[in-house]
Each structure stands twice: as C-alpha cells, then as structure tokens.
C-alpha cells in the first residue's frame, strides 16, 4: 500500500514537471531571466578571478578615466577599475539580498504553516503581530532599525530577513487555510497522523509552488531594498564595491564622468530585470490561472 502510494506520487511528480516546460516555452522572457541570473551567479562565483584588477586598487594618476582597452568600464574617482568592482560587487548584492530572502522565507514559512494550521488564538496573535510590522513602510523601518543597529552587511541581511517575514507568512498561511479543508488532509487526520506529519508530508509539498513564487518575488524586492539602503549610505560601507553604494558615490562625479554612473546602474537594472522575468515565469509555470499578485 505504501509502495503503491509512493509510485503514484512519483508519477504525479513526472506529469507535474512535464506540464511546466511547454508552459515555459510560451514565455521566452523566462529564459532570458534565468540566463541573466545564471550569468550573474557565474560572475559572483568567479568574479574575483576574472577581474583584471583588485577592486580597491587605486591609481590616482588615472582618476575618472573614460572606458579604454585597459579599463573597459573606465575608472572611478580613485582610479579604481569599475569593471573589476562590478564583477566583485555582484557577490555582495547576491549574498546580502539572497541571505535576507532566505531568512524571511524560512521564518515566514514556519509562522505561516503553524499559524494557518493551528488557527485560534495563536493564529490571531501571529497575524496581528505581522500587521503591526506591515503598518510601517518597509524602507522606513529598515532605515530606522539600521540607524539603531549601525550599518553593516550582517545587519542589512537581518533587517531584510525580518521585514519580509510577514509577507511570506501571509501567503503561506492563506494556502494552508485552503489546503486544510481538502480531503487528503482530512484523510490523514482520520488515519490518526500527527500534526507535524500532516504539515510536513501533506501540506508542505503543496505549499511549495506558492512559496517558490513568493520567494522569487521577495528576492527581487530584497535586491531593490539592499541597493536603496546602499545608496542612502545605510547598507554595506565603503570601500566595498556594493552596486548601490557605487551609484551613490557616482552622484558627485557623473556630471564629468557618466560611466561612473552608467555601469553600476546598468548592472543593477539588468539584475533586477532578470529576477523580475524569472519570478514572473515561475508564477506562470507554478501557479497557472492564479491572479498575478504584486505586493
């Protein structure tokens, strides 16, 4: 019986995957998105090896030098190679936004699962707490917390993780509330399975598609937030090659040297578009028919 059940699940899994790819083919932007992200991942891993110069190596004789053969993206106000800085900086943005998203997804998932499944007073309290966090605009809350904790890489990760917990928890909870009434959950309860078993084996797998879509959306918002905090000087501190910080510093110089602004700004734009395409593609693949939700 157990075996038959497993076989059935496997089959269902195959046809599930089989359904994705034809759907994916209808939206070429999804491929573009994944390609951009893979390219940035590659750069983040191998960037420091590819980079022709060290990201903080100064050359004061060659300040604000326009793009040339030696410096294909030009140099900044300290004569640092912008190309090398962007390559190395991809690590910062992906790890900070990525870890923040991972934190939010993990805790949001836990809260959403238990809150939705248990219901009652616990649910009420968790959701009201989430409402209070949501009552403060995210960027403002991030600024105030970072003001108190002091700006640093770890603190930015913690803040991003904390801020996005409520959004993830709400999405997960709403899916759990719907699943709870389904017959297969009812059946598991009749069999006398424990709550933890039901949550892990019956509910969690069905939450995953929505969670994946939500996570990819959170990732794009995290990049947005991390870059904005870097720009405001509340994120990763100089001389680190954070893209938002580079754009912020470029503000003083781009009147005379546009490339100081264009390349890091272009890198942010490209990454953001890539993540947007990917998350949109994921939503169309995993949640067909659902109202596309932004928020």
């Amino acid at each position, binding site marked *: 019986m157990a075996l038959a059940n497993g076989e059935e699940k496997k089959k269902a899994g195959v046809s599930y995957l089989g359904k994705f790819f034809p759907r994916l083919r209808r939206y070429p932007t999804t491929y573009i998105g994944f390609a951009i992200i893979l390219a940035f991942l590659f750069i983040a891993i191998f960037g420091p090896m590819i980079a022709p110069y060290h990201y903080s190596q100064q050359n004061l004789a060659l300040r604000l030098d326009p793009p040339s053969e030696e410096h294909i993206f030009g140099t900044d106000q300290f004569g640092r190679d912008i190309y090398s800085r962007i390559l190395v900086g991809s690590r910062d943005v992906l790890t900070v936004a990525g870890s923040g998203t991972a934190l939010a997804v993990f805790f949001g998932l836990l809260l959403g699962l238990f809150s939705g499944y248990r219901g009652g007073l616990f649910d009420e309290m968790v959701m009201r707490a989430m409402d209070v966090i949501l*009552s*403060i605009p995210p960027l*403002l809350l991030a600024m*105030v917390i970072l003001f*108190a*904790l002091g700006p640093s890489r770890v603190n930015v990760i913690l803040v991003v993780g904390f801020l996005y917990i409520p959004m993830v928890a709400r999405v997960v909870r709403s899916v759990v509330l719907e699943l709870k009434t389904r017959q297969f959950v009812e059946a598991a309860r009749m069999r006398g399975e424990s709550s933890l078993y039901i949550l892990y084996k019956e509910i969690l797998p069905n939450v995953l598609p929505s969670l994946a879509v939500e996570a990819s959306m959170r990732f794009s918002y995290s990049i947005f937030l991390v870059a904005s905090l870097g720009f405001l*000087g509340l994120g990763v501190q100089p001389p680190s090659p954070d893209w938002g910080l580079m754009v912020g510093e470029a503000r003083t110089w781009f009147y005379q040297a*546009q490339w100081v602004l264009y390349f890091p700004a272009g890198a*942010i*734009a490209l990454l953001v578009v890539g993540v947007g395409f990917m998350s949109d593609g994921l939503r169309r693949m995993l949640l067909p028919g659902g109202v596309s939700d932004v928020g």
Partner: protein
Amino acid sequence: MGSYFIRRIGFIIITLILASIIIFSITQFLPGDVAQVILGQFATETAIANLREELGLNEPLHMQYLNWAGNFIQGDWGNSLVSRMPVRPIVTQRLVNSAMLAGLALLIYVPLGIVLGVIAALKRDRLPDQMITGVSMAFVGLPEFVSGLLLISFLAIGAGWFPANSSIDPDSTFFQSLPYLILPAITVSLTGLGYVARMTRSGTIDVLRSDYVRAAELKGLPGSQVLTRHVLRNSLLPTVTIVAMGIGWLLGGLIVTEAVYGYPGLGRLLVYGIQRQDLPIIQAGSMIVVAVYSLSNLAADIIYGMLNPRIRVD
C-alpha cells in the same frame, strides 16, 4: 458601515500606538548617549548629567515613552537636536512638500497605468501586451535612485530640459516648485506605473473571462460598450485597492527620490535626521509617515466598500 468604520478607526489607533512603541524603542538603541550627542564630545560630566536630568533620561523607559507620546499627542514634538528649532513646523512643512510630489506622481502614473494595463489585457499575449508587461516589469524593479540619476543624466544634464537639482526653498508654493517637481515625479511614477499596469492587466483579464462579459458580447453589444459598461466598471475595482496598497511603496520611493534630487520633503528630512542622529526628527517624521500610511489604507477600504456593495467586510 458605521460600526465597521468605528472598528477600523479603533484598529488604526491600536496600530499607531504599537508602531509608536516600536519606533520609540528602536531609537533607544542609538549608539551613544543622547545628552552626549547634543553637547558634543567635549562636554563636562556635570553638564551631561544636568541635561540627562532635564531631558528625563534618568526615568525608567516606559515613563520616557509615556512622556514622549503624551507630548506628541498634544502637539509638542520636541526640538531638533541639530538646529534646536521646534520639530513640528519643520515636519508639517516637509509633509506638505512631499504631498505635492506624491500628488503629482499619482496624477501621472494612475491614469497612465490603467490605460496601459487595459491595453495589455485586451491584446493579451500579443506584441503590445508583451511590450507593456516587459517594460513595466523592468520599471517595477528598478530602484528610484537608478532611474532618477539616469533621468537626471539624460533629461537634465544631457537635454537640459529640467533642473538637475530640486533642493529648492522648503517654503516654495506649488507653482514655484512645479518645474523642480516634474523630474522627481516622473522618477516616482516609473515604479508605480509598472505596478498599476500589471495589476490592472490581471484584473481586466479576469473580468474578460467572466460569463457576463461573454453574455454582453453574445447579445451583440459593440465592443466599446462591452468595454466601458461591463469590463472597466468591474476591472477597475481592484485598482483602487492597488493604488492604496502601493502607497507604502510610494512613501519608500519618495524617501529615495527626495534624496536623489535633494527635494526638501519628509523623506529627505528623515535621511538627514538619521545621518545626524537627530532623534526627535526621526521619531516625529516616522510617526507621520506611519499615520499617512494607515490613513491611506483606511481610505482605500472605505472607497472599495462604497464602489462594491457586495463586499461587506467584517
């Protein structure tokens, strides 16, 4: 509706109290002593001790909070630690400036976003849709400081159409500020435009699939009538909520955009306050932002309820 309204107001008051506790407690983690910050690093021990006494810093934390909250409600928002000026006139003046910027941005992106969203929905999966969806996706994700600086570079420095810097006299009237408001308003609008367009598109697609639209088509109504009388009336309902839900985004966007252009609004005031550790400015400014946010959410709920009598929220 009446009791619902009262309950919502009650909920907002509770939210504001909790938010004020959060903001007050976070700002207590400030590295260093407030009295030290005010007097500078060369102040004598006794001077610091006296000021601590005067500011009530020796009282227990909950008493400090109650004093602060009580004064805040009575309109005494304290004095700026940097300029020593009363905080309330500064914050209200900056709030007006931010409201002018936000209003102009809303006037740009809401109608434009709705039009683009409806076009995308009608041409679903065809070229116009793919272009609108693709471009709006890029705009939604593009941080305001990136789009803002690029706009300055192209339209202000390159083409010379707009001033590159909007750090005008905070007392300027709307018409004095207008030329300086256009570029920041476009910057804020880009994010909101993509957002409204996407949501209008998905709302309209849902309505287009509905039975009553099918029925209207089958009974031979001309397409334009189906669109105005059946589709838009229903598909624009969610847009109201979307615009209001986007207010949180708008507020964040204003903070960054004002920093980019140096526009003297509430956002730039908050960023300055944080850079200079000006505690009263941060507290009052944050509270006002939270209050505006809560009220706009309430307004959205009420408008939504009025537009759609089927919804009885409880």
